[in-house]
């Protein structure tokens, strides 16, 4: 009898715990950021102040770039329209405060994923949309073809408040070269100062060097040195504390990359609904309940692919065709010799 009561209570306790647990997860499904975004009718996205290929506005104020496409993908997924994005251009210095203070909901601004940023300051990195590394640009006429030719007293222009500043120090210190760092808040100011001859070299992520080179008075007079001095995995960031929103952004990016892997493009996405491959069918919302987990409908991923395209399309449109980096390098799919590899949507 006593034993029965004991068993009964433990059963009740278990049910209670389960109940609490399920209501907890049910509550977590209701993402505050998602709810606010749907109420406002647009995704608030933080981008750069103009980095061709990543986030750049044309004269009419239309934003393009691979970083921009991440935000557009999220807008397509949660609002049904890739154009419902409000872009906020931010300097490197402002970007994290803008995100943590709630001014924006996604920061997609060629931001390097590092331990301290991820763990320390209330941010969560959701993935990598561009694998990059820091490099150096010099004048062709200087005759420098490798960083091993750098000498004591060299001055280097770069952006303020970036991992670049730290990598640069590590690099010059390990080589035992004394240098003068000249740091500006805006990328345009860095380029102008380097162009004028204030610095002997301009250092930032290689993609940035390639993109900014176009802005110089005579791009052909400058070369990017072959050495890469750091790992710079760039990716979108969200605020800590909204796990569902984090998942939505992560899987919007993953969907774009996986769609390329399975050959789903913006033009053939609809016809893929009748594919024999269940994996493809899941990616276009024709099988499984892939949206329910986020509190979205089932065609959220189809909309991303149709409206924004897969990762390959985005890369080609923004980075390859604009002549910034025609070669995809590490940003090729793992099946084609690159390192783009995302978990499966299932």
């Amino acid at each position, binding site marked *: 009898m006593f034993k029965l009561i004991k068993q009964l209570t433990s059963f009740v306790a278990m049910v209670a715990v389960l109940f609490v647990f399920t209501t907890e997860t049910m509550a977590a499904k209701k993402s505050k950021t998602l709810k606010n975004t749907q109420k406002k009718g647009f995704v608030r996205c933080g981008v750069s102040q103009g980095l061709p290929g990543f986030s750049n506005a044309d004269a009419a104020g239309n934003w393009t770039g691979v970083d921009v496409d991440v935000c557009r993908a999220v807008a397509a997924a949660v609002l049904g329209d890739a154009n419902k994005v409000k872009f906020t251009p931010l300097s*490197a*210095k402002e970007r*994290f*405060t803008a995100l*943590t203070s709630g001014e924006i909901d996604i920061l997609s601004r060629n931001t390097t994923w590092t331990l*301290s*940023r991820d763990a*320390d*300051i*209330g941010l969560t990195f959701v993935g990598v949309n561009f694998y990059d590394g820091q490099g150096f640009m*010099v*004048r062709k*006429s*200087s*005759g*420098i073809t490798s960083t091993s*030719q*750098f*000498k*004591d*007293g*060299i*001055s280097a222009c770069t952006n*303020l*408040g*970036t991992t670049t*500043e*730290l990598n*640069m*120090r590590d690099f010059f*210190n390990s080589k035992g070269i004394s*240098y*003068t*760092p*000249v*740091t*500006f*808040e805006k990328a345009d*100011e860095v380029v*102008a*100062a380097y162009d*004028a*001859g*204030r610095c*002997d070299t301009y250092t930032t992520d290689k993609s940035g060097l390639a993109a900014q080179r176009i802005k110089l008075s005579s791009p052909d007079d400058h070369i990017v040195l072959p050495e890469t001095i750091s790992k710079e995995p760039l990716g979108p960031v969200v*605020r*800590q*504390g909204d796990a569902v929103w984090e998942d939505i952004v992560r899987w919007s990016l993953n969907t774009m990359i996986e769609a390329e892997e399975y050959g789903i493009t913006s033009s053939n996405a609809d016809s893929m609904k009748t594919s024999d491959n269940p994996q493809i069918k899941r990616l276009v919302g024709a099988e499984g309940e892939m949206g329910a987990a986020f509190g979205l409908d089932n065609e959220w991923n189809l909309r991303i692919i149709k409206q924004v395209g897969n990762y390959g399309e985005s890369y080609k449109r923004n980075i390859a065709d604009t002549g910034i980096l025609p070669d995809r390098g590490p940003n090729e799919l793992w099946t084609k010799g690159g390192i783009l590899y995302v978990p499966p949507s299932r």
Partner: protein
Amino acid sequence: MNNKFKRLIPQFFTLLLVVLIFGFFTFNAQVNMDNRGIDFGFGFLKQEASFDIQFSLVDYDGLDPYWWAYVAALLNTLLVAVLGIILCTIIGVIVGVARLSSNYLIRNTAAWYVEFFRNIPLLLQIFFWYYAALRALPLPQDAEPLLGVSYLTIKGFYIPAMIWENLNIFLYSVILAIIGIVIVRTYARKLQENEGKQLPVFYISLSLIIILPFLTFLVGGVSLDFEIPVIKQLSITSFTYVGGIGLPPELIALTLALSLYTATFIAECVRAGIQGVGKGQKEAAASIGLNPNQILKLVVMPQALRIIIPPTTNQYLNLTKNSSLAAAIAYPDLVLVFAGTALMQTGKAIEIVSITMLTYLSLSLAIAALMNWYNKKIEIKEK
């Protein structure tokens, strides 16, 4: 008693309101930071900064902690503020006096200068001087030596560095000379008050401050050498200078922009001060036999200063605070280094911004206190 109580009630509620408002903001910030997993604390100041600073008055290296980076950055801010205040005072006084000149050309040039520079936003002027400097200054290899030992180039102004031997003895002699001057002045004043005799105080002071330090070179074992900057090739087309002191072009552009801008306001203060002294004062002084020099020194200036000092204090404060615009042109001041790079690397926004704000507040209060003390000293002493 009842009356006193009545008067206290509104004060009590005002205080309560202020406390509540502050409490609300603190609480709000606390809750939001907790929600986002950000912790508050100043422990980061002891961590290694691991970034370099372009230009620093103290020995700073990336291995030093954040608080040392703060000190280095603060000194850079102070350097610009001090240089700017000295320069804008000199320009301001000259232009202010020039505006009252009887010469048409001088008077109008000064007026044009004032109207032009005070009506263009400071940030634009800073950009102008910086990019003008970057465009106009020669590359290191093309620079012509100034006086044979200094080079003004796009990468900076390279001047000879002084290498002292027994610098302390030299400094002692300077201190001794200053003490000597104070004694002479006190004696001279007494002599004048008691016997009506005047000593040539200025010449005695001048010779004291020159002769005493000079003696240390002859007998005190003090010696001074100059390290002259030498050009160094970095690659086929890029050069720099090594040795000596390199002042960054950002410092020069910023100091120039700040002083030229602030000088316009000081010029107006000076003009107001001089015009504020009644004509009768000068005539009265002349009638008792003072020469023009004495009239300026003993009658006009003491009265003019009373009008000039308070508004000039404002301008000094403005200049110091405006120096934070340095961040726009890569001059490593407090805002660029501490509220910029350090904030970015640590993510401690609230802590760093409050430290920065408190620093500017203290700087301003210190300057204001100094100027108020000076103002007290020169104000009318009623007997």
